[in-house]
């Protein structure tokens, strides 16, 4: 053989092969463009979602940390803190930062802080982050500016880091928690976990779409491959080049995609950080999220897996090609197993696994089911055109499996995100309502007697129209039912109209009236879940050393409070009960809060009171979540749009390959208009069917997120709501996609079609 020149010298493969492979794209640049665009958009989308989620998580973590780190030093004698206290504590080596709250004569509340004093809070903490922000922005100013304001009211707090221990303090001082706003930690965490789960779903959808577009491209290049094979190029060599080609393409497209995704997230997410800043009173720098490496690597892996999964699994192909009934059986088994597992799964991992199973099963089953259904309808149809239409639908469902499944997933995701977001919105609203049931919230200063205030308020009841109030006492008790489990006591009196707005998870008959009469108590959802307590059960509590029995009148939602809590009538607390915290919730009605605070200051003999304006807090909190929810919706809608465009593209390509047969209808004497109508009905049947099939999946996903994942992750459940109007919107959207495909086809019908050359895949002869 030595003397014989090889038919193709080695240079042939190195030069000709890539050229031959690429020549396809030279002739069909749009296909390459479509694939590249799909990679870029998919990367952008996922990076955006991922970036936003991690950014939101970082921000929430910071806020939680910042809130958690807030503790303050107070005087044991209950007197207001002064500058001397600040100096004395600093000289004693205690890290304290002044927090001067000033309500000016005109204008809104100001908080003055001292960035120099805050230096000892250390890097990376809430307090020092405050310094990275412009202080002239509201509500922070330098304490010098705050002190200079002509103030109606001014109060100095001394904040100290979490690390400060009571033993670090000089005599006469003690530590106390300091909170100016509600801690949304658990609620936020839960939302983010769900958001992350949806991020994975976005990744799956984009992978499906990528695969669809890539396989379409491969099918269109089949002729080139056949030609190369005739030239003596082995399939292995072609595959190697295909791997290289997709790797290069992925690399070239993923990087700008990641850049765009970050840009998108930054553009959308900027406001998110701002809103958080507002809520937590501390400017929180929304973290940069992941760097570049993670999204680039993830997307590269997704592109390669989605496009070349077949090549990688080539050697198993024999085992993979299962007969149709076996495949259907397997898919059904996956689906059923997933559903059962999601129902009964004991831990988060199981439930996530179950979700994966259900999606795999549904994705596998849906197109087959649509095809099957179409066949069934066709066989029962006496009208030949209808029969033809159903048969075509079956072909479509099989040929467009990937983009259809992607659209189904996207629709399901949008549906569940919508339900989730709306549920969360609702929950936040009620949670805020529960936390901020009154318009104002006045702390009872150390050493003062809350009951005196109660007496005064009772005496005013008649003279101040619209006055609503109750006294709140917090402390702890032991639950004897559960081996002396420590529970928080939340006691109110009188049990008035402010409380009755609370939504209860479970309740006995007339629970509030019973509680008001001093009988029984309520427990939070956490305690009910952990101790398996129900309405009507008896609680054996040791309150202030005295055993007392209460019957459970109701279970109230706690939205993530991890500690068991008992709600009692404060009148039933014994004298020995150790009050840890006491406050008055007041909705002052017409005259405003000033007469109330003035009177309470007089009664308690203090110069200043800690008054929280719940309206402002509610406004801030609502602002934050509105924005986050809007962002989440925007992101999922983008996914849907991507899925829709992919289907549109694939549908168009598919219809083009089949144009000959649609024209055959014209040859057979149908008018172009009639044929176009048939195509429209076909496309609508397809996308409408997918929407209908997406509904149960989406509803199920919502159920899993709300009723399974959330309780498992956080020990509390959200109410699940259904929004049929939104389902209808989704269906209409899906039908609109169908109409667009049909419109594209109508244009194609006008031009003469080429007869399909062979019966290979994607040339129009599929049945």
């Amino acid at each position: 053989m030595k003397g014989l020149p090889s038919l193709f010298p080695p240079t042939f493969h190195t030069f000709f092969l890539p050229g031959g492979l690429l020549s396809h794209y030279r002739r069909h640049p749009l296909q390459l463009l479509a694939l590249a665009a799909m990679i870029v958009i998919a990367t952008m989308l996922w990076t955006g979602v991922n970036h936003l989620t991690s950014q939101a998580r970082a921000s929430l973590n910071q806020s939680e940390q910042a809130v958690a780190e807030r503790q303050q030093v107070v005087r044991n004698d209950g007197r207001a803190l002064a500058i001397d206290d600040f100096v004395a504590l600093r000289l004693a080596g205690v890290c304290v930062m002044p927090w001067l709250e000033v309500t000016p004569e005109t204008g809104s509340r100001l908080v003055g802080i001292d960035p120099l004093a805050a230096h000892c809070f250390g890097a990376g903490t809430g307090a020092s982050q405050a310094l990275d922000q412009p202080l002239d922005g509201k509500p922070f100013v330098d304490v010098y500016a705050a002190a200079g304001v002509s103030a109606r009211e001014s109060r100095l707090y001394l904040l100290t880091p979490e690390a400060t221990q009571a033993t670090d303090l000089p005599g006469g001082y003690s530590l106390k928690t300091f909170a100016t706003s509600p801690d949304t930690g658990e609620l936020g965490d839960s939302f983010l976990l769900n958001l992350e789960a949806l991020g994975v779903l976005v990744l799956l959808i984009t992978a499906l779409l990528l695969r669809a577009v890539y396989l379409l491209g491969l099918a269109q290049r089949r002729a080139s491959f056949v030609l190369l094979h005739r030239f003596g190029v082995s399939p292995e060599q072609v595959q190697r080049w295909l791997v290289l080609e997709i790797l290069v393409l992925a690399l070239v497209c993923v990087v700008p995609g990641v850049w765009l995704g970050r840009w998108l997230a930054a553009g959308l997410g900027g406001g998110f950080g701002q809103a958080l800043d507002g809520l937590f009173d501390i400017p929180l720098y929304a973290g940069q999220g992941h760097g570049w490496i993670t999204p680039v690597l993830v997307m590269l892996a997704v592109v390669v897996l989605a496009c070349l999964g077949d090549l990688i699994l080539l050697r198993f192909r024999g085992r993979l090609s299962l007969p149709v009934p076996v495949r259907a059986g397997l898919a059904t088994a996956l689906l059923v197993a997933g559903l059962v597992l999601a129902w009964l799964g004991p831990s988060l991992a199981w439930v996530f696994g179950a979700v994966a199973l259900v999606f795999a099963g549904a994705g596998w089953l849906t197109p087959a089911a649509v095809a099957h259904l179409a066949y069934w309808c066709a066989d029962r149809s006496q009208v030949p055109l209808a029969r033809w239409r159903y048969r075509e639908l079956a072909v479509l469902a099989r040929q467009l499996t990937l983009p259809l499944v992607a659209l189904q997933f996207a629709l399901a995701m949008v549906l569940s995100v919508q339900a989730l977001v709306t549920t969360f919105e609702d929950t936040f609203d009620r949670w805020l309502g529960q936390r901020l049931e009154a318009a104002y919230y006045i702390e009872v200063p150390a050493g003062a007697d809350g009951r005196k205030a109660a007496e005064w308020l009772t005496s005013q009841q008649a003279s101040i129209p619209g006055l609503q109030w109750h006294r709140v006492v917090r402390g702890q008790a032991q639950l004897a039912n559960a081996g002396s489990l420590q529970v928080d006591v939340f006691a109110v009196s009188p049990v008035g109209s402010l409380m009755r707005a609370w939504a209860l998870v479970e309740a006995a008959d007339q629970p509030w009236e019973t509680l008001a009469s001093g009988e029984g108590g309520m427990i939070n959802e956490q305690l009910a879940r952990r101790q398996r307590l129900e309405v009507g059960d008896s609680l054996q509590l040791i309150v202030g050393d005295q055993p007392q029995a209460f019957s459970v009148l109701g279970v109230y939602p706690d939205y993530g409070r991890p500690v068991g809590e008992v709600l009692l009538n404060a009148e039933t607390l014994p004298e020995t009960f150790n009050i840890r915290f006491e406050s008055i919730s007041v909705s002052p009605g017409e005259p405003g809060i000033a007469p109330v605070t003035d009177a309470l200051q007089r009664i308690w003999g203090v110069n200043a009171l800690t008054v929280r304006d719940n309206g402002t807090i509610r406004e801030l909190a609502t602002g934050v979540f509105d924005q986050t929810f809007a962002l989440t919706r925007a992101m999922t809608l983008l996914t849907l749009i991507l899925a829709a465009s992919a289907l549109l593209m694939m549908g168009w390509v598919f219809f083009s390959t089949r144009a000959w047969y649609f024209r055959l209808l014209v040859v057979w004497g149908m008018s172009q208009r009639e044929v176009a109508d048939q195509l429209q009905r076909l496309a609508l049947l397809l996308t409408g069917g997918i929407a209908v099939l997406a509904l149960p999946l989406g509803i199920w996903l919502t159920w899993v997120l709300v009723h399974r994942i959330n309780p498992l992750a956080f020990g509390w459940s959200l109410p699940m709501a259904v929004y049929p109007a939104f389902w209808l919107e989704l269906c209409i959207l899906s039908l609109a996609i169908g109409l667009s495909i049909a419109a594209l086809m109508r244009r194609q019908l006008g031009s003469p079609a080429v007869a399909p050359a062979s019966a290979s895949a994607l040339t129009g002869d599929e049945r």
Partner: protein
Amino acid sequence: MNRRMGLLLGLLLFAGCSGDTGDEGFAGLAGLEQGAVSDTLYLQPGPGVRLSFPADFGPHPQHRIEWWYLTANLETAVGEPLGLQWTQFRQALEPRAASEPAPAATDWPLQAAWMAHGAVSWKGQHYFAEKLARGDMGSAGATAVPFKVWLDNWQLRGNADNDRWHLQAAGDGWSYDLTLSIEGAPVAHGEEGFSAKSASGEGSMYFSLVDIAITGEVTLDGEVLVVRGKGWFDREWSSQLLKTGQKGWDWFALHLDSGDKLMAFRLRDDSGSFLSGTWLPAEGDPVRLSSEELSLKELERRKDVPVRWQLSIPAYQVELQLNAPPGDYLNRGLYPYWESPVNVSGSHSGEGYMELTGYRTQ
């Protein structure tokens, strides 16, 4: 108000991007605010200004910047060398005449920011902490009589005769509690206390206490070390220390075994450098050293920081090699700079301290 906040923020934000601050020492602050508040309101030292004791141990609110600076070369009971630093800076955000009363603490005034640095260097380890406070509140300040300089619980206080001082400071994992015996009178540098920092006349008032015997305890990670040794205390104040274009300085204070002592510094700029120093012979009066009489040469760098030097004063047959011990002695505060003990060899042996600012260190 905004302007002052701006400065304060500048001061703090510089900490956030310390990569750039290597160029600009804290003394550079004196130049940072130029033109913002009329310079004429700040007193600028110059030739002819005289020192005045004990008043000059106290603060100079009409000057923009000043510091109280102690470095100490100590050794533990078993003879291991231990370096130690305590510094307190005052940075004026607004000048105040000596006659003007201090603002009321109740206003949370913002006329001055105080910063304190404490560091301990032992066995190649460097412990450092930084504290900040606003002035005129009572939590940070200085008085001449009785002599006291404090920021929170870091305190230096003198006795009635001001010849015995007590110094306490503590940071994360370290603390010290020292007694300082002050021997000898203050040494005025430069022209009777006016120390020129450039050929064009910028400079500061500068005096030192060079003979301080120190005893006490240093606690490092819970281990209590009994230490003794000698210290060097600098007082310096100015309103414009660095001339535009100057990038930083190299400063040395050396105790030679011969009993002689030496202070020398070099200010670097693009075109060259400005050297100055004071030779303190064991016997006799201190001698001013001009740029021509001193020579300073870098011999070796450790991560961009020159750690080995050659210092010569030909007129006194002084030819010294200065060596920082192994380790990283960067004070990583708002304005990172290098502060390390040095060993002296060459024509004389001895020990001392070296401060290097304005090197790109990160």
